[in-house]
């Protein structure tokens, strides 16, 4: 069954998104904002890093220009994600707008790690994966936002599930491509950017420079 298969694939994301969503909902309500805003953000923005950053924006009365530019830079990587999904998403007509909207790091990771299913089931498979991940994020946010008005919680360390997920997906990527080139480039630019670039821009800077190096090394294998 397609839904069951999609659900099983998304379980690790659930362990990452629910606790991170709880933490976000909790922090935003602790900052004095109604739980409704937390839910609204998780539904329409649906980007963990951006939403955590937004709490600072709200507290510090950030200007709209500052919010716009930072959000753009922080999320420019999604354009690279989409670039590698154009072919995979072709023929998913009626759900395509939602698939594009709901394209987070983790959803992208799952979709690219999955071998292309048959065309007929592909649309529903991708849709269920995207929708389930979105629901985990919103559900976590709801729990956290409601808790935030009542309790203090301690979820220390649970967010490591996301790191572990990326590690597993990197291994799966290696099994698929059978080449260490992108990993060597990734390790090099990643470590350089960790050392020299502010954490906020580390991902964008390393993706841009890594992609540039990939292009420069295209003809030599």
């Amino acid at each position, binding site marked *: 069954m397609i839904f069951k298969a999609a659900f099983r694939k998304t379980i690790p994301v659930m362990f990452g998104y629910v606790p991170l969503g709880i933490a976000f909902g909790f922090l935003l309500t602790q900052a004095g904002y109604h739980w409704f805003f937390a839910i609204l953000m998780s539904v329409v923005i649906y980007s963990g890093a951006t939403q955590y950053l937004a709490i600072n924006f709200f507290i510090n009365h950030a200007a709209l220009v500052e919010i716009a530019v930072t959000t753009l830079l922080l*999320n420019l990587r999604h354009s690279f994600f989409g670039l590698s999904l154009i072919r995979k998403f072709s023929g998913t007509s009626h759900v395509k707008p939602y698939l594009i909207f709901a394209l987070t790091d983790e959803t992208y990771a799952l979709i690219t790690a999955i071998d292309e299913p048959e065309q007929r089931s592909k649309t529903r498979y991708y849709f269920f994966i995207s929708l389930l991940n979105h629901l985990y994020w919103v559900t976590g946010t709801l729990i956290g936002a409601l808790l935030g008005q009542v309790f203090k919680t301690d979820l220390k360390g649970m967010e490591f599930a996301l790191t*572990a997920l990326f590690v597993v997906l990197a291994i799966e990527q290696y099994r698929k491509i059978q080449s260490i080139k992108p990993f060597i480039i990734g390790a090099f630019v990643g470590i350089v950017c960790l050392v020299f670039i502010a954490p906020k821009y580390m991902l964008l800077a*390393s993706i841009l420079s890594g992609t540039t190096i990939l292009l420069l090394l295209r003809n030599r294998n």
Partner: protein
Amino acid sequence: MSYSSVIVSIFLMAFIILLTRILPFLLFRKKELPEVLSYLERNIPPLIMLLLVLYCLKEVKWTSAPYGFIEFGAIAVVVIVYLWKNNALLSIVSGTAVYMFLINVLAST
């Protein structure tokens, strides 16, 4: 920030993020994917996956105790369990359990 400014900011962020997600699909909708882009399509996912792992480690303090050993130990558990059992969920749960155990043990000493 007032509630109305918060609402405006939320939709501004939502719009910009949607823009970053939709851009490649708008630009390359009708055209056949050029060779260079299919090369990137194959190589960008493994690159980004490794970078996301490193990005997750951005808050680690490498120059003071415990020098990132907890993160490396937990990642080693994830890799070993995954290569051994080939079960993603089992490997993620054991790695996270080890991490949470070590973090909380250190916090209490």
